């Protein structure tokens, strides 16, 4: 356990399993409790999104639950995207004014790893445009966005991809 001048220390009442120099100090048993005096349970990170329960850590982050619906404007980060009021069913705001190279990031929490359909609600006056669904630098899917007849004429396009915990990006 020790190198250097550590043997001058007070060493007592430790539980030592497979410690190479355990015979080099007395380590007397005092009967005091060993290890943490109470279970270690707490939350940490932004808004307590990570839960420490003893030796394990799990995520209860406010990321969008998958399966589920993500409003386009509820991204965690983006580049050169603007929002506007939408006339699509349900109202709210859509993201728009996208140019090549623009992107949006979403934090997601996928309950079970597997293959999911991803439905994109899209509208465009341009034909032959695409979106990419990415995890980090990996392209999970390329989505062809059709001409829909207007910037508020909405259609659904679907791709099928494996999803995992953490974040997804949409690139234009």
């Amino acid at each position: 356990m020790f190198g250097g001048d550590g043997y001058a220390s007070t060493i007592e009442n430790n539980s030592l399993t497979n410690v190479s120099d355990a015979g080099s100090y007395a380590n007397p048993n005092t009967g005091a409790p060993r290890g943490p005096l109470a279970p270690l349970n707490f939350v940490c990170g932004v808004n307590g999104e990570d839960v420490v329960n003893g030796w394990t850590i799990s995520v209860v982050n406010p990321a969008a639950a998958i399966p589920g619906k993500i409003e386009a404007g509820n991204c965690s980060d983006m580049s050169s995207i603007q929002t506007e009021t939408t006339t699509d069913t349900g109202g709210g705001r859509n993201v728009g004014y996208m140019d090549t190279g623009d992107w949006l990031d979403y934090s997601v929490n996928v309950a079970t790893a597997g293959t999911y359909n991803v439905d994109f609600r899209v509208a465009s006056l341009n034909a032959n445009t695409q979106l990419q669904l990415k995890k980090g630098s990996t392209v999970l899917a390329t989505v062809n966005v059709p001409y829909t007849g207007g910037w508020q004429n909405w259609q659904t396009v679907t791709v099928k991809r494996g999803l995992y915990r953490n974040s997804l990006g949409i690139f234009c």
Partner: protein
Amino acid sequence: MNRVKHPGLVARMGAIAALFMAAALQAATVTVSNVTQLVNAVNNGAANDVINLAAGTYVLGASLTPKPGMTIKGTGKVTTILKPSASWNPGPAGLPEDPVGPGSADPATYMFSLGGNDGIKISDMTLDCLSQLHGAILITYDGKNHEFYNLNIKGGLSAGIRAFYIQSSSIHDNTIDTVATGDEWRACIFLAWPYDIQIYNNRLTGPSMKIKLRQDIRSHIHHNTILTDNFAIEAPFDNNADAEYDHNFFKSPVSIPKMGGGDPPASGVQNHIHHNYFMPAYAIEFARDGVEIDHNLFDLLAAGWEDGRLISAWCAGDGPARFHNNLIKDPGYGLFFNTDAYNNFQFYNNHVIANPTPNMYTDGLFIFGEGASNTDVIKDNIFDCTTRAR
């Protein structure tokens, strides 16, 4: 007698004076929707004005200096965006190479330069420095009662938020990602001589250090998620006092070195680090006197930091340091290393599980430097070294 003879006159004058005072204190609330209106509202507005920014992108040609007490509020991180024009591009020229004094930061290179004004709130927008500006918010001297929240700050060459002698202020619920690289004087949040600062619920990413502090007095840094390969917190200067770092998620180390860091304050604690989740094997850069580190989970998995010891130091100290009630899994090189003597180090009631790791050392979990005294204590711990002896 005169007071009795003319009571009405006295009363009216008092009322008029009160009206004047009310007029002087009344703040305006304005909504702006383009950069010209924004600049005019800030430059020609009054103290305590509330300036609401409508959704949209505002392209700035120069730094803004809000009046004391101003509130500048957008509609959200995604919908209100401030960025510099192509011509406002100071670039890396003049980046500080030494953070010692307020003169080391150029106010003209920050999106908001608050000077020493107090009580300014900036919230609910993206401040995108586009790798052109040195940072988003600068307090050059002695500002207090500021609040910066719900901001997405990115692209700063030096810092997201930089301040000198900031007091009694809070920085919370932000995402900050600088592009700063290259030396130790860059950080997402860089505070020199801060007093009573709350930093919480921030998500900090990017290549630079995340939170850098010079002489940290009573800061409370909690519930942040700090994901970086650089230092999560670095407070390497003398005389920290009652600084508390808790409930954070750390992918990278917390650095509190300084040859002991001077005499501890009256409370005896320079730094209290508790209830955090640590990933780096090189977790605490030491040595400082008057430190308590307790109730943390050290689950030492972070790539890039798998080499190193949980507490690593290259300087002497007189302690005390109390390290207790922590769970520690898979220490890399070991638990404690110092080239010099550190006294009054107390390691107790911890549970250590040391599984074999690719870069594990077997020459001792604790390596005390030459001249270590008999004041160090290791007691009431559980050491489970699986497969290979440590």
